């Protein structure tokens, strides 16, 4: 039977409209996929490094109240940034003279890091589909160690009762991190974890001051000397506790702790995956099936440690206007951060590579499932590209750390003393001096803390007396 032209037209119209509806559904599916995959990632575009820039500038400009306000706001607006914002707030408190509050904040973060160090299935899965910013931040290894050093210092500045316990915890933490690193990367990994000598130094200072445990002080100072052989005053400390006493009759001791320079921060960099990282990634992927890494990979975004330019070398110390010399580095935060981060860098790159592979595979699989072609396929490719492009590196970090922690010990006659500190660059005074009056008790220690990120001191010089 021959069909009427009108019927043929109707059938053709029906077929075309059905095809158009199918295309619409496909496009809709693409949009949905785009929303599912891309939109959550857009939130990851802004990195902590960008959010930290303003409070960091305020801190270095000496505007402590505004800095505190910004950091508090940051800790509330970005849940993932809360702990690092707390660390920075602790620095603001410590430098601002509220050592007790600083200790409290640091203790909270220490406990949070302890908890977050454990693996979370949910976060790992989410971060595999988005980026590392989806993970709760458990601190880089250097930060986990330095929390204890600053806990010890904060405690010493207001009470001193727990300072020694924190310094012992610091050594325990280091041993724990070394064990974890050895388990992950072999015995060579230990080399990256040089001790935070500040912990040993503080233990030596505290044990020496009780005039009974010179043996403990000697062990602690011996470790400081071992890792800082070029610093002569530390050898004097060691000799003193081996052969002499804390202080001579009528004398007391002032310890000047200086937070010198601007410390390490994390920035986002594009990384061509290293062969080590690819090998690790390949092992992970190959372990679960006959899938290998794609032969070519676009650069991936990972965090890297950046050390700001050096604007100050030491801090010159004068007591009652008599110049005594510069402070000496007891802990190079810069060095510890670079070494420990380098030890873990391959794993970070590997994780980013696996994530990239997973995303590519997801797009391919989605296209196969949907059986897309032409415009839809192009749209999905675009979505995939956008998905990968919106990935950001996890640049969360303790942003207000100093480059170095420096110290100087001065034995002075008991009584009121004026301590004057001035920034030094290549042994020359390069900024305004700052003076604080402290009271020195006979046979006791007085602790002075100052922050010199550059040629200007931040906040006031603080003392525990």
């Amino acid at each position, binding site marked *: 039977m021959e069909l009427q032209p009108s019927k043929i037209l109707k059938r053709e119209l029906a077929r075309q409209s059905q095809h158009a509806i199918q295309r619409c559904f496909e496009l809709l599916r693409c949009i949905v996929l785009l929303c599912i995959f891309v939109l959550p990632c857009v939130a990851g575009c802004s990195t902590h490094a960008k959010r930290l820039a303003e409070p960091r500038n305020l801190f270095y400009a000496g505007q402590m109240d505004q800095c505190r306000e910004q950091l508090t706001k940051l800790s509330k607006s970005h849940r993932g940034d809360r702990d690092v914002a707390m660390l920075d707030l602790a620095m603001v408190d410590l430098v601002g003279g509220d050592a007790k509050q600083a200790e409290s904040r640091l203790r909270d973060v220490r406990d949070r890091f302890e908890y977050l160090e454990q693996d979370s299935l949910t976060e*790992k899965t989410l971060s595999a589909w988005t980026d590392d910013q989806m993970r709760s931040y458990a601190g880089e290894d250097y930060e986990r160690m330095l929390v204890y050093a600053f806990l010890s210092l904060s405690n010493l500045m207001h009470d001193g009762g727990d300072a020694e316990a924190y310094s012992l915890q610091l050594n325990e933490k280091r041993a724990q991190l070394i064990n974890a690193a050895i388990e992950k990367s072999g015995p060579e990994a230990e080399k990256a974890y040089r001790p935070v000598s500040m912990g040993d130094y503080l233990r030596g200072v505290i044990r020496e001051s009780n005039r009974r445990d010179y043996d403990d002080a000697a062990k602690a100072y011996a470790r400081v000397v071992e890792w800082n052989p070029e610093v002569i005053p530390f050898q004097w400390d060691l000799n003193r506790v081996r052969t002499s006493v804390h202080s001579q009759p009528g004398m007391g001791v002032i310890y000047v702790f200086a937070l010198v320079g601007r410390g390490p921060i994390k920035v986002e960099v594009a990384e061509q995956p290293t062969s080590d990282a690819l090998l690790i990634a390949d092992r992970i992927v190959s372990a679960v099936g006959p899938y290998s890494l794609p032969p070519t990979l676009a650069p991936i975004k990972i965090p890297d440690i950046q050390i700001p330019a050096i604007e100050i070398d030491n801090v010159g110390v004068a007591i009652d206007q008599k110049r005594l010399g510069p402070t000496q580095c007891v802990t190079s935060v810069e060095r510890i951060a670079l070494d420990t981060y380098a030890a873990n860098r391959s794993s970070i790159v590997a994780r980013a590579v696996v994530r990239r592979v997973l995303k590519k595979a997801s797009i391919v699989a989605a296209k196969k499932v949907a059986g897309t072609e032409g415009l839809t396929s192009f749209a999905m490719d675009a979505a995939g590209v956008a998905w990968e492009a919106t990935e950001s590196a996890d640049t969360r970090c303790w942003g207000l750390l100093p480059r170095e922690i420096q110290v100087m010990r001065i034995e002075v006659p008991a009584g009121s003393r004026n301590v004057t500190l001035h920034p030094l660059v290549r042994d020359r005074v390069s900024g305004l001096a700052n003076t604080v009056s402290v009271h020195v008790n006979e046979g006791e220690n007085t602790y002075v803390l100052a922050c010199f990120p550059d040629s200007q001191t931040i906040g006031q010089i603080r003392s525990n007396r």
Partner: protein
Amino acid sequence: MDRRKALQVLGTLSVTWTFAGCRGHQYGHVIKKDAPNMVGSHDAGAEVFDPLVDEAVMKLLGRQCIPSPDQPIGQDGMPMKKTVCFVGVENKSAEEIGDFKDQLYQQIDSKILESQTFSSVSRRMVDAALFETRLRPDSLLVPSNMQLFTQVLSRQGAPIDHLLFATLTSGTTERNSSKQRDYLLTLEMTNVHDGTYDKQSAEIRKGYHKTAVGKLWNYNPLKY
């Protein structure tokens, strides 16, 4: 690749990524008094120090509790307690004993007080005397220093009969990846009146192994 296969691939990759692991909270519990101590895997702990203190203190005080002919007699007709000034614990071992040092001091001091024949001087008084004399604990056995130190304590109202020093030492024997460490706690008691000296040591040996079979390999009970 069909839908199921694709989902399998994605699922497997996700699981690989995440491996296994969930965050848990930390818990604590009180250990019963008769429960054995935990044995430290890398260094000495309560399992070494507790028995060392028990043995050394008991033996030394047990030997010293016999009254000497020149010991003053109290109003009740019994010999008066001898006063011991426990100066401190010196750690000369290869290990950092950390917070155990003060624990050792308190354990030994408590055991002296628990004994019926000895009393001890408060640690705060000892610290005050060290502060006043500016003497190092390890220099107290020099006769002039000892005299000065005891004079200061007497002036504070705490005359003493004996000075007590505790020293922790260790000796290490290594064999491939295994290690034996002998811990020795030595108590040295010096009579400040006549300079006589007594000493008691207690020893515990401990093995450290990198592998589970290390203990069997080095200390095979069938071999000895």
